[in-house]
């Protein structure tokens, strides 16, 4: 059974091989005329102020949380979708209830302003 997945592993190895090869080539072939000015953080020509390791908008965190919640639901749907033909109406109603509960959560977050972006 595991042999079926060997080509996937081969492709991942080749893909990362190409990636690392390109990175190493760019480090070997590239010119080396480093100055301090080149190595400073780019900030439109100004002297950089502060650090980028700062706090950022909580909204991005909210998006990530919502994503995890909904993405797990989507993952549940895949095996269901493959087998629906054999499982029939029962499976449909099961998923219907599942999506209904999901929609309750969705509207709760909607009304609470979880998807607002100001």
């Amino acid at each position, binding site marked *: 059974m595991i042999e079926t997945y*060997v080509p996937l592993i081969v492709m*991942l190895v080749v893909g990362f091989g190409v990636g690392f090869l390109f990175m190493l080539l760019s480090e070997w072939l590239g010119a080396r005329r480093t100055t301090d000015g080149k190595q400073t953080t780019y900030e439109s020509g100004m002297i950089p102020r502060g650090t980028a390791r700062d706090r950022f908008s909580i909204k991005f965190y909210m998006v990530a949380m919502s994503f995890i919640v909904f993405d797990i639901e989507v993952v549940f749907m895949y095996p269901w979708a493959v087998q629906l033909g054999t499982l029939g109406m029962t499976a449909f109603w099961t998923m219907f209830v599942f999506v209904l509960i999901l*929609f309750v959560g969705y509207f709760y977050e909607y009304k609470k302003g979880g998807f607002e972006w100001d």
Partner: protein
Amino acid sequence: MPEIIWTIIEASIKALAVVGGIQLMAALNVYLERKISAFAQNRIGPNRVGPFGTLQPFADVFKLFLKEDIVPKNADKFFHSLAPVLSLSIAIAVWAVIPFSSYVDIGDRRIYMGIAPDINVGLLFILAMTSVGVYGITLAGWSSNNKYSLLGGLRSSAQMISYELSMGLSLIGIVLITGSLSLNDIVNHQLAWDGWRWNIFLQPVGFVIFLITAFAETNRAPFDLPEAEPELVGGFNTEYSGMKFGMFFLAEYANMTTSSVLIVLFYLGGWALPVPAETLGLKDGSIALAAAHFLVFFIKVLMLLFFFIWVRWSIPRFRYDQLMNLGWKILLPISLLNVLLTALGVLYLK
């Protein structure tokens, strides 16, 4: 020799061929983009390197290899180097499950045109890889220790994960119709019955959602906020130079190809010939038939690539709140409803 060695040899040869093909497609994309945008803006575009400037992308890549690789002092060196590798490698690795033609029978061995198109986790593998692709961009934004990079990376990852949901949900419609996650099965299901079995006719809503999310996932206009030049300089790749920048660039254009290919495979009938293969006198499993399939497939992909570029020069960029509204308030509920309706349709019409 045991079977597994043959599998590895076959997969390696195919993998190297596919990697070459992806690089060529990326080069073609860059050339097309520059030429078409030139025509859209009443310019000539690249016309110096090679006939009609066709060698321009290769010249660009060689130049990028020879450019200095600048790593900012404050950057996290390890992740700064890892991010482009991750982006490019993942963009290549997706191709493990993507077929680009039918199959060729050599002796008693059936060779599929694709590395493992018959694998039973194909679609899940693609979704998993698109999810990992987000890491490359997030890491690039964070490790550069630059405010523009950080904001670009954050925006990009938030956008990609928002649209990934609708993308995954729109594909469930296709899984419902096909009853399989293998990309070969999805295409074969559309081959019968000449044309009208294409998923675009069975899943028009899913098609539109997938098209929109494909634009958002590849960070292309009108969803190119991560690199909105007037506000964020270069977005997550502001602090990259040399081939490390080139790798992001390649990955972006490879992803554009991948998206077009996926749209063709999922919705536009893959390599379905306009007439049955028998009328052309082509035998099942022959090289000629596989070549004809590939030609049809390639023409469709080129048309979609043109569409991608065309949209970029026709439609203005979204605002970030509009982008989030579209993703969460419109596409997500529609695609959820689409899944339920498709399920009902599949159950009643089968």
